[in-house]
């Protein structure tokens, strides 16, 4: 069936056919094929459409630098992805592929109308137009541009696959599995180093896989390869295929992405699709070889026009003839060798057109012997053919003058513009490159990391040189590791290093202004576009790139950067290094989001912390809310209650009898040491010296700027020991701040801090019957009002559990907070529920807690304060230890703006209509009839319906609020203006009698 496959040739398994689909049609490939090689074996060159002009395109390369042959691929539900490189994706069972960027079909695409009007779409055309009329941009022009842009379509379903990640620490990482890399890895491994060798393709060997004629160490090249790989394995080297080094980060950390299962017909349960490796290597050898450059001439993008080395790879590695009749156009010897391989495999090679006047005589005679016409000093004028190249026009060049062209029929054109060292990863390290004027390439220069470059990456051509250099790089690395290297490079036969020259766009006898000579195939950037950009004042390569989008396609400029630079330098009349080089940035090739997110997905995205009592709340129907990392019970609805009804019931029950609340998430810090009280004096605003053991106090913590940071009740357990509580979200922040001051500013203080947040489960029992519920469970302590008054702390036994018992209240009712060992939190909770049954004890959540505290005017840091509120603003001046010489924030509080009048102060608000509940965050004005922008004097920080008071209540920060008691203010809403009266913040039990029961 396949007329382009050469039986028995290449490294594919001829006895294992693999079936896959392309645009709905089933094709047969062989195990080991890429989608591109399999399609080419079936005579299919047309694989996609270009970005801007929708021109028909085929594979240009056989590797990860491919700009054209990008397909949508799919395995099953949710397993679709766009823009897969056909040149890298292996064929497998369960593989559907589809071409992209075409409407309605690949062969007939109406988007190609852009191509017909290409003269309009020059570089930067969109900056110059689409401006009139103004309203058209959003509605007409932009939607049009957007619809035309983009390549494939985004996935539309959730990805069912798993992704993985690993850290690995090794002596030597070798990137690139060509002969230089293999030799470097062997050198390292033989010296006893722990080595990892990676290559992005399915097989180690690099270019050697495309050149079976080479002999190494007296063996056939492929036999040497097999032996070398066997030795690497026996030396314990981790050899990783299908693994791309995506980025080179600080301190020799290299990110690798391994494609674990995309090549498999069936994926085992639990296997990841891709795995991210974060490699920390003491030494790195980059042996990434070189990339062949296309030539830039009119029609260089037609399906069938491809890199000479790609044709050689398809032939030798995959056993595929890319066509029946080839013409080779080149500036480098390497394409001659490719032509020879093709000719010897029975493909007709009509001619080799080489821009160079002088060609090595041996090449010429060998070409002639193979029946290939030799055309030195020839340029390419154009190609013809709609969906596949049909002919190429070539013409002689003499002293810059281009002669008459002639047409040579063909079905493939193999081009080579020479080779560019692949230095992407080296560039990630911010290593410096230097321009080699003779070879016209950038080479590695100043290094910033522990890295060696081996082989073609530093401009060395040929297998002999690559093997030698692999040893040199390996030895340097081994020496730096403190080991001794013994490896030597084997001898090489049939080495064909070759030479060549670098050129800009090829000379033509046509109108260069009309030439469709592509530099960036995918983004449809032509030589003409680059010259236009220069003419318009874009003098740096960075400007040229951004103006034309050259090098910004998914091949990241691998094909286009050097050609773009050569053309821009030519246009500017400057040497390339004066024009610059676009910085390569990670990743080396586009990297799947899934691999980068790896395990951090779904519920593993971030921890959800739960308390010991959470399970009870869940079993009892609680609705939860996320609060920082925690989830907390928000309210406990009963039989169809909504939130408002549940909260009203919970509030009433607590005020009337008793409520129970899980306060375990509050931060807890134990402050211990002879200087504990001094430390407390310096950190918190309050005075602590006179707080007796067994007593507690509300503590307020400021930042050095004088603004409120945190608060909580703090108990003194003994002379030298405090139990500090913080807000739920503030726990880690407060501890870090305390450690900072202690270690950095006050290292003389003998005091230590320990987080005990999770040592304790904390249950709050509040309400007039709180003591009755608790008392039967307490041993070793008299909790009567006389013996254990409000704001006390003691250690005792509750429900048989060792406990730290606080008497405090965040509700305004008689209240206790019981801390017991965390694992016993639920035991305590259930004991209290049982003991409270006769008082109809009511579990409540955070919402009821908020309402109850608001009725009492207690603030919540972060809700009633916002990082710009001082203690004075919040009505907490009483908490400042004014006689203390210093505390954190004391000086900050004295800054001019913090003592100025007119600061926003925390007050209560009562709406005129008691049923109207203000929105939290609503803004307050004094004159509701003013035009916008209005002068806002404050905002509503907290607002609730109070079941206790039978009306709504609110707190607000209002300019000069303390002096505006009983004033009316206005809250303009979209549909109406609400009026409210300023009051104090204590709405319930202003005398504070209830807590003293």
């Amino acid at each position: 069936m396949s007329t382009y496959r050469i039986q028995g040739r290449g490294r594919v398994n001829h006895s294992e056919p693999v079936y896959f689909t392309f645009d709905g049609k089933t094709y047969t490939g062989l195990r080991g094929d890429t989608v591109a090689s399999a399609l080419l074996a079936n005579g299919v060159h047309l694989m996609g459409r270009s970005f801007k002009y929708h021109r028909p395109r085929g594979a240009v390369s056989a590797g990860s630098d491919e700009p054209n042959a990008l397909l949508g691929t799919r395995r099953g539900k949710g397993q679709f992805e766009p823009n897969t490189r056909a040149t890298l994706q292996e064929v497998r069972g369960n593989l559907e592929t589809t071409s992209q960027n075409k409407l309605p079909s690949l062969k007939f695409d109406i988007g190609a109308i852009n191509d017909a009007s290409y003269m309009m779409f020059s570089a930067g055309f969109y900056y110059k137009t689409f401006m009139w009329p103004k309203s058209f941009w959003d509605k007409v022009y932009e939607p049009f541009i957007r619809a035309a842009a983009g390549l494939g379509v985004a996935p539309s379903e959730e990805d069912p696959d798993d992704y993985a990640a690993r850290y690995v620490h090794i002596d030597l990482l070798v990137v690139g599995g060509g002969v230089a890399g293999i030799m470097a890895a062997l050198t390292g491994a033989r010296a006893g180093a722990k080595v990892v060798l990676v290559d992005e393709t399915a097989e180690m060997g690099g270019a050697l896989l495309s050149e079976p004629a080479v002999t190494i160490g007296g063996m056939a090249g492929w036999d040497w390869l097999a032996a070398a790989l066997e030795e690497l394995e026996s030396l314990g080297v981790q050899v990783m295929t299908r693994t791309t080094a995506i980025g080179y980060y600080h301190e020799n950390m290299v990110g690798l992405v391994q494609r674990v299962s995309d090549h498999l017909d069936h994926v085992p349960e639990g296997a990841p699709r891709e795995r991210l490796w974060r490699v920390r290597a003491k030494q790195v050898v980059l042996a990434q070889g070189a990339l062949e450059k296309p030539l830039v001439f009119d029609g260089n993008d037609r399906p069938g026009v491809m890199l000479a080395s790609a044709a050689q790879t398809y032939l030798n590695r995959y056993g595929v003839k890319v066509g029946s009749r080839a013409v080779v156009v080149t500036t480098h010897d390497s394409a001659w060798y490719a032509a020879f391989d093709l000719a010897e495999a029975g493909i007709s090679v009509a001619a080799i057109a080489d821009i160079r006047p002088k060609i090595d005589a041996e090449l010429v005679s060998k070409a002639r012997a193979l029946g290939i016409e030799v055309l030195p000093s020839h340029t390419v004028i154009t190609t013809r053919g709609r969906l596949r190249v049909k002919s190429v026009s070539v013409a002689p060049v003499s002293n810059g003058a281009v002669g008459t062209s002639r047409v040579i029929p063909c079905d493939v054109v193999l081009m080579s513009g020479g080779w560019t060292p692949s230095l992407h990863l080296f560039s990630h390290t911010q290593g410096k490159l230097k321009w080699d004027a003779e070879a016209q390439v950038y080479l590695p220069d100043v290094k910033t990391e522990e890295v060696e470059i081996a082989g073609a990456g530093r401009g060395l051509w040929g297998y002999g040189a690559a093997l030698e250099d692999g040893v040199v790089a390996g030895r340097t690395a081994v020496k730096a590791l403190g080991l001794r290297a013994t490896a030597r490079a084997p001898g090489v036969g049939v080495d064909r290093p070759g030479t060549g020259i670098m050129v800009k766009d090829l000379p033509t006898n046509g109108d260069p202004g009309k030439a469709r000579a592509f530099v960036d195939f995918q983004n449809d950037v032509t030589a003409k576009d680059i010259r236009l950009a220069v003419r318009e004042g874009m003098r740096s390569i960075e400007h040229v790139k951004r103006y034309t989008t050259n090098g910004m396609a998914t091949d990241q400029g691998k094909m286009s950067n050097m050609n773009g630079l050569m053309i821009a330098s030519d246009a500017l009349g400057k040497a390339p290094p004066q024009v610059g080089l676009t910085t390569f940035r990670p990743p080396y090739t586009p990297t799947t989001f899934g691999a980068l997110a790896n395990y951090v997905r779904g519920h593993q995205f971030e921890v959800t912390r739960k308390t010991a009592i959470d399970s009870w709340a869940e079993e009892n129907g609680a609705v939860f809310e996320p609060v920082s990392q925690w989830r907390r019970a928000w309210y406990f609805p009963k039989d169809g209650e909504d939130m408002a009804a549940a909260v009203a019931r919970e509030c009433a029950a607590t005020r009337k009898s008793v409520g129970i609340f899980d306060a375990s998430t509050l931060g807890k810090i134990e402050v211990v040491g002879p200087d504990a009280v001094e430390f407390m004096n310096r950190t918190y605003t309050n005075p602590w010296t006179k707080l007796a053991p067994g007593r507690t106090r509300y503590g307020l913590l400021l930042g050095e700027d004088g603004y409120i940071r945190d608060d909580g009740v703090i108990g003194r357990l003994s002379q030298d020991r405090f139990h500090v509580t913080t807000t739920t979200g503030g726990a880690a922040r407060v501890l870090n701040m305390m450690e900072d001051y202690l270690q950095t500013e006050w290292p003389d203080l003998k005091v230590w801090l320990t987080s005990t947040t999770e040592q304790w489960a904390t249950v709050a029992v509040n309400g007039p019957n709180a003591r009755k519920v608790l008392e039967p469970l307490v041993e070793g302590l008299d909790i009567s009002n006389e013996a254990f008054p409000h704001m006390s702390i003691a250690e005792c036994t509750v429900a048989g559990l060792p406990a730290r018992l606080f008497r405090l209240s965040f509700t305004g009712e008689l209240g206790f907070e019981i801390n017991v060992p965390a694992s016993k939190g639920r035991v305590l909770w259930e004991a209290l529920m049982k003991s409270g049954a006769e008082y109809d004890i009511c579990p409540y959540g955070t919402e009821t807690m908020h309402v109850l505290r608001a009725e009492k005017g207690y603030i919540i840091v972060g809700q009633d304060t916002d990082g710009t509120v001082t203690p004075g603003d919040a009505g907490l001046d009483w908490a400042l230890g004014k006689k203390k010489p210093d505390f954190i924030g004391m000086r900050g509080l004295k800054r001019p703006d913090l003592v100025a009048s007119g600061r926003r102060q925390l007050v209560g608000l009562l709406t005129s209509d008691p049923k109207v509940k203000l929105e939290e965050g609503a803004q307050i004005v004094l004159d509701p009839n003013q035009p916008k922008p209005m002068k806002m004097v404050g905002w509503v920080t907290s607002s609730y319906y109070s079941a206790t008071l039978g009306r709504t209540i609110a707190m607000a920060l209002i300019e000069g609020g303390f002096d505006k008691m009983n004033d009316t203010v206005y809250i303009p809403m979209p549909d109406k203006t609400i009026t409210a009266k300023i009051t104090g913040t204590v709405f319930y039990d202003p005398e504070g009698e209830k807590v003293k029961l």
Partner: protein
Amino acid sequence: MTFDKKTAGGVTIEELPAEARFSLRVRDGERAAVAGALGLELTDTVGVMTSGSGRKALCLGPDEWVLSGAPGDAAAITAACAGVYDAAPHSLVEISEREIFIRASGPAVEALMATGVARDLSRIGPGQGARTVFDGTPVVLVREKTDSFRLNVWRSFAPHLLGHLFHVQKELASGL
């Protein structure tokens, strides 16, 4: 038990029983006195564990140890330290309940650990440990044996960490 022991993919993940644990903080000058009272040596080399009198002390920081003993030993440890407090001030805070103790062991345990720990684990030998992060979760890890690690994790982070460990266990079992 909060979770069941599971073996697959070359690793066993299990919960370890409770023990008495304390955070001990003491300066150089007072260290010997506290060590004497506890009946073990307190090294000032971070990451090293010492033991004596049925107790273990892992040095986590220059003045910080995590002290562990049998569940019933808590009162004795507290009393021993209290006895020298006046002469050798220090901080002893019980944290027995703060953490869950997980053991991961087996031939594939290094691969499992390498999915979450950025440190070079080869630098932590048997009997050594460190406070570090496992895939974003703060942990204290101790290498008990070459192929056995103990992870102490704050109680509320344990389900998250276990979610990761069990997920990777399946990945390891896939052989890929």
